């Protein structure tokens, strides 16, 4: 079964840390973009999929109509499983009750809310367009609209952030009784304003303390830590994202989107004018050899806290890592040890 990702490169305003392909001044191209997406859908064979994910950018910044045109086309062109997980990312600054109701009615059953923080001061510093009270509102509306699967995104390791600041946001998130929380430590990406700025970032010690306190709190609140940065209540793991970590097939539609099937990675152009002209689609990125595939399966799978099934691949590397206390074999899976969570790259790099 495939997963289907739809990239929406539209934003009201670009956040200061964001390096995703998205633009803040192209709403006049909304129709053209939707048409291009529909064109691209038409280039694919009929496939079976059980997850659909609208990400961005800010998918919720498009009109309901645009979103539905794309989703309808996906239903028309592909076989979508009856129990499919259909997610849309929503920015609290772009949500209305009406909009969420329409989204729910048209088939979306999971909503991923980009909260990031519950402190207005921090939200402002990140360049977010919303404030804390709009997060509470959005979660409420989502629930009232009938979404039974709500996820929150949080960030930590922010400029000027103290451990207590983050714990406050985390507790607010927990109190909202959502089903899923993703929490990412801030990464300064080249080419973003944050990268150029002189930021007062927490040091590594503090940042790791936040991470471990978070994991602890979420566990106490009944969440399962299932991926390095992801936590879910029983039964609410992101089925779509799991496909990435388990090397399952997926197609990516839209500007700069990536696909993976037949052991090959494809990517679309990052140039909007090209994409709108239906050009630069499905370029071959890399064809994985059997060896590459085996390695990737392990290091991507190791992002999962329970790890990934292990059949004795690369015994030399694995044994070395076991001796260093960085991985362990448990119930047929290879997984990171607790201490390796903080330095997972040291493990991954052995398998690239």
């Amino acid at each position, binding site marked *: 079964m495939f997963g289907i990702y739809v990239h929406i490169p539209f934003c009201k305003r670009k956040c200061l840390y964001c390096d995703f392909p998205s633009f803040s001044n192209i709403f006049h191209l909304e129709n053209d973009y939707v048409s291009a997406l529909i064109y691209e859908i038409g280039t694919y064979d009929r496939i079976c999929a059980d997850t659909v994910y609208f990400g961005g950018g800010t998918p919720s910044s498009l009109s309901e109509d645009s979103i539905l045109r794309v989703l309808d086309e996906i239903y028309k062109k592909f076989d979508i499983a009856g129990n499919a997980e259909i997610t849309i990312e929503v920015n609290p600054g772009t949500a209305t009750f009406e909009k969420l109701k329409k989204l729910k009615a048209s088939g979306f059953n999971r909503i991923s809310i980009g909260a990031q923080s519950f402190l207005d001061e921090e939200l402002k510093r990140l360049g977010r367009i919303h404030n804390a009270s709009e997060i509470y509102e959005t979660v409420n509306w989502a629930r009232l609209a009938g979404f039974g699967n709500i996820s929150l995104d949080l960030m930590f390791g922010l400029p000027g952030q103290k451990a207590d600041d983050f714990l406050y946001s985390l507790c607010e998130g927990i109190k909202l009784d959502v089903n899923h929380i993703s929490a990412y430590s801030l*990464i300064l990406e080249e080419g973003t304003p944050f990268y150029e700025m002189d930021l007062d970032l927490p040091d590594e010690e503090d940042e790791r303390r936040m991470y471990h306190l978070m994991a602890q709190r979420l566990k106490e609140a009944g969440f399962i830590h299932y991926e390095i*940065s992801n936590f879910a209540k029983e039964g609410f793991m992101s089925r779509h994202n799991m496909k990435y970590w388990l090397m399952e097939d997926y197609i990516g539609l839209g500007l*700069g989107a990536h696909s993976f099937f037949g052991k090959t990675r494809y990517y679309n152009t990052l140039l909007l004018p090209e994409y709108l002209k239906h050009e630069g689609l499905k370029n071959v990125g890399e064809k994985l050899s059997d060896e590459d595939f085996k390695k*990737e399966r392990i290091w991507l799978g190791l992002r999962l806290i329970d790890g990934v099934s292990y059949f004795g691949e690369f015994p030399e590397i694995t044994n070395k890592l076991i001796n260093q206390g*960085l991985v362990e074999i448990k119930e047929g899976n290879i997984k990171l040890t607790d201490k390796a969570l*903080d330095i997972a790259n040291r493990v991954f*790099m052995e398998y690239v």
Partner: protein
Amino acid sequence: MSLDKIRNFCIIAHIDHGKSTLADRLLEKTGVISEREKEDQLLDNMDLERERGITIKARAVRLVYRANDGEEYILNLIDTPGHVDFNYEVSRSLAACEGAILVVDASQGIEAQTLANTYLAIDNNLEIVPVINKIDLPNAQPEMVKAEIEDVIGIPASDAPLISAKMGINIEEVLEAVVKKIPSPRGDVNAPTKALIFDSYYDSYRGVIVYVRMMDGSIKVGDKIRFMANQKEFEVVEVGYLKPLGLSPSGELVAGEVGYIAASIKSVQDVRVGDTITNEKNPASEPLPGYKKVNPMVFCGIYPADGAKYDDLRDALEKLRLNDASLSFEPETSVALGFGFRCGFLGLLHMEIIQERLEREFNLDLVTTAPSVVYRIKKTNGDVVFVDNPTNLPPATEIEYMEEPVVDATILTPSEYVGAIMELCQERRGTYIDMKFIDKTRAQIHYVLPLNEIIYDFFDALKSRTKGYASFDYEMKGYEKSSLVKLDILLNGEVVDALSFIVHTSKAQSRGRRIAEKLKEAIPRQLFEIPIQAAIGNRIIARETVKALRKDVLAKCYGGDITRKKKLLEKQKEGKKRMRQVGTVEVPQEAFMSVLKLD
């Protein structure tokens, strides 16, 4: 060609005073290069030479000049290396000449190097022809510089040509001075052959091309020649002159001439600068004076960054040695660095040049250890051993005393820096000998300095403390007893052999501390905490700690990221691969280098 129409001469100058530019002008004026096959500075062939503005190897060229007296003269210009490392080569090039043009920058005056080489020339009985260059510069003071030449060197300079090599002004005067002032060579064509070797290079078709100055007798194609130092014999295949744009066979070379010999010689090791070539049929009874075997002064370990490149490194060193008889190397093994070579050099510059050529011309990534001088160790059992690698130092209990090489150092400086220089020399354990004021503004300071104090960064320190105005020159003096210890560096409790070095007792503490600090910066955090210690024997004299790695994890990795994240991981892995596994610790190459630069 009669001898009195030949002039053999060289040019002496400080770096940047315009030696190569003047040489180019002479070539131009004598018409041998038409308005230039214009690559600047024809004599400096190596890229490195051109970049650094120095001459590394000697070269020679034969010019034909029609002088104002209407006669045609053969001018053999022998270019000399300008650096102290190549002092011996300089002296042999000088011995091949009857005169020297002394080029002095009209705005800078005499420098230490000029002085040293001029004295060398005077020792070789050369006629010195002073020339004042760069008279086009606004701050040129030709009259003052003339006076300086007369005062400091003690040769008349009142009629020295005032020229600008760059602008091509008064070049003719230089040529006339060469013809008029420099004596023609003497020599007896019928005497037993004596030819002085002043340079050589390896040519893949003809074997070694030997540059010679014929002192007596003759050499022609078919002759059996003998190298007097090693008694090796060869049959001459080709002889000729050194024309500006290549070798020009002549069939015979006779006394007084300068030229080349090819005799199917396979290795430059057989062709030692300063050696005498004679004819097997009528051999000379005595070689020319002045030959000595040059010994390397400075040693360091050179290792391939990638252990698999060991063979490439050996091939590269062998190729360089084809043209550089003074480069020595032999295999050595380091626990920390694996397989590499212990290499010997004439001096620091020579070492840097070889390292740079290995990296540039052979595309090798190198790790080098700190340079070491050669220590003389008197053991308690009476043996005397020489040690050029700290790792080979006998245990302290077996050492009665140690001696280190010292040099006679001459520094010329504007007088306002005298204090700073004396402070520097004092810090470097120098012994003050004397100081003279050359004129009101400039002083000549004389110190005896331990060689191991100047092989690290003395030049840099001197430059920075005198804003680049002081110049420095030295020659070997001999060995002196000294209180020396071996300083070891321990990572995670294990001695890293490649980081050990020998240091004066008074410097051990501070050097140890600086190295520990440097290593702390250079070694990235790892899975565990790493103590860095500096120790003399069992005594720890400095300690730093590299904290354990706390965080190295990609927070996010979704579909679109995977390729990019994988590349990041590959890059990280690549960086890790370039590190050396020293016991349990991974040490980046830069760490080995960083201890070389402590200021």
